[in-house]
């Protein structure tokens, strides 16, 4: 582990939903845990939108707050949380890199070491998102294009799920927000490179974070966190992060499945709407 000479103790594992975030967390778990992964006990440090951590440090019931109020307080909660840490924390986040009502970033940049931004071909996200959300391909397609897309959205101003509402935005805006706005270093890791060139890709991420790991340790962690390993664990023991409605969290893990899943109209529309970012990351 690198020395912690300052308060920059958080590494954000940021992504649009269904882009490989859990896979990356499984890899980090294996790396920090002598090559072992238990999918229901990932060794990374939770999700930004977790209500429990907020309630612990804010000392009030966040269910008594509106989501708007939570968003105005959450950066300070994590700022304080960072002061309590004696090691780097890896925190998953799907929220868009956005500001609260007062114009302040909801992500506390001053206590951030860096972010790993995991990006995946939006055409492949559609099917995965449909499976995860137990919705149609068309509905998932619309989520990727919807500037108001949120996770854990709660009807009628409710704010009481285990996770806070996460404003995600559309796919291009999410990528742009996390790659252009932060004042801390961000590395973009392509899901497809994790799949086709795992050793080089994971080594790049490990080096960027500043973790010390030998090539053998990285290779062992890649093997332990392979799709087959994670999927077979889910079949055997279940996965607590699977949504209630979806059949299986780890679905196919492949790239290019969009060719069988999307119709021509959906493919063209996605390419057109997200052309700039898709081109930038070699998806076109």
């Amino acid at each position, binding site marked *: 582990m690198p020395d912690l000479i300052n308060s920059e103790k958080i590494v954000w594992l940021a992504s649009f939903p269904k882009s490989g975030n859990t896979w990356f967390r499984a890899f980090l778990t294996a790396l920090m845990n002598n090559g072992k992964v238990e999918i229901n006990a990932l060794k990374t440090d939770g999700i930004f939108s977790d209500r429990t951590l907020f*309630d612990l*440090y804010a000392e009030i019931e966040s269910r*008594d707050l509106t989501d708007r109020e939570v968003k105005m*307080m959450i950066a*300070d*909660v994590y700022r304080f949380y960072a002061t309590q840490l004696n090691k780097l924390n890896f925190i998953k986040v799907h929220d868009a890199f956005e500001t609260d009502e007062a114009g302040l970033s909801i992500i506390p940049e001053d206590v951030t070491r860096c972010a790993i931004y995991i990006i995946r071909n939006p055409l492949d996200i559609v099917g995965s998102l449909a499976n995860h959300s137990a919705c149609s391909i068309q509905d998932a397609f619309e989520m990727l294009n919807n500037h108001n897309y949120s996770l854990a959205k709660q009807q009628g*101003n*409710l704010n009481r*799920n*285990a996770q806070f509402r996460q404003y995600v935005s559309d796919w291009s805006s999410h990528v742009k927000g996390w790659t252009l706005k932060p004042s801390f270093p961000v590395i973009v890791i392509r899901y497809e490179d994790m799949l086709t060139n795992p050793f080089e890709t994971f080594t790049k991420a490990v080096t960027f974070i500043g973790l010390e790991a030998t090539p053998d340790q990285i290779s062992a962690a890649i093997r332990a966190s392979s799709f087959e390993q994670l999927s077979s664990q889910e079949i055997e023991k279940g996965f607590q992060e699977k949504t209630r409605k979806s059949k299986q969290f780890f679905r196919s893990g492949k790239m290019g499945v969009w060719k069988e899943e999307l119709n021509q109209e959906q493919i063209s529309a996605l390419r057109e709407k997200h052309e700039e970012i898709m081109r930038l990351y070699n998806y076109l």
Partner: protein
Amino acid sequence: MFRYWGFGLNILSQIEFPELLPKEFDKEDVTIEIGITPLKPEGDDFVKRPFSCIAEKEYILNIRNVCRYYAANGSKIIAEPVPGIDQRSIRLFLLGTIMAAILYQRGSLPLHAAAVEKNGKLTLFAGKSGAGKSTLTALLASNGYSVFSDDICVMHSGTKDKPGVYCTASYPMIKLWDDAITQLDGDLYTRDYKIRPELPKYGQFFFENFNSGQLPVEKIFIIHPTGLSHNIDVIKLNTLKSFRQLEQQAYKNQLILSKKLRAVHFALLSQLTQHVPVYEITRPQVGTNSAQLFEAIKNQL
């Protein structure tokens, strides 16, 4: 000034509290006033947290855009509301975290639990917010039980002559989300009193049947939603597990600073786990309702 009973205490307040039980008394235990709160606790021995400062006998909490609160020596609360803020918001946080701070300063143990009463004995439902305590309590009120307390129960140890553990209610109001009211029998609960203007959560008053006495605790259920559960399971915990689980159920236990207070709680929880059976209910994170919970526990009730 207004005079009330709440959490087992006589409260003299500059703020009107429709939630608390009006009561005449000679001497107050706690005063509540509107005023200027100190910038920090008096001594230098305090802990600073994101929105609070805490010392053994002082607590300052600042809820941005709502109110800044000061609680001291288990007997004094000052509220400094943000201009224009509604009264309900001021009262809601005061009746939660701030009263917990007062109770801890007095050496009490407020348990994060709802309670129902039958034949003069209490069944407690502990668990974090969102576990389903209030809705289950409301459901039991239509099944032969009386609501005793919502959200917080103040624990007391028994004596040699009166063994066991006893409990005092917080105040005669139960809070239900909009959809819980729909789920429960519609005639009993209303949407007349929003606990905060922007929240679809409603206070239900039960002044008529309210019991402000200390009643013995007969059994405790700890409700524990988990992402891994597919079913509702109820298991009886052994003494050690009961102790460990109940320790986590102290309301806002991050406000407990002193070793002395921990020792008092240790003694009380030891007594509790010796005298009272404790059951753990694990249930799926989403997709269960209070009727299913009731069905799962009715053999143990």
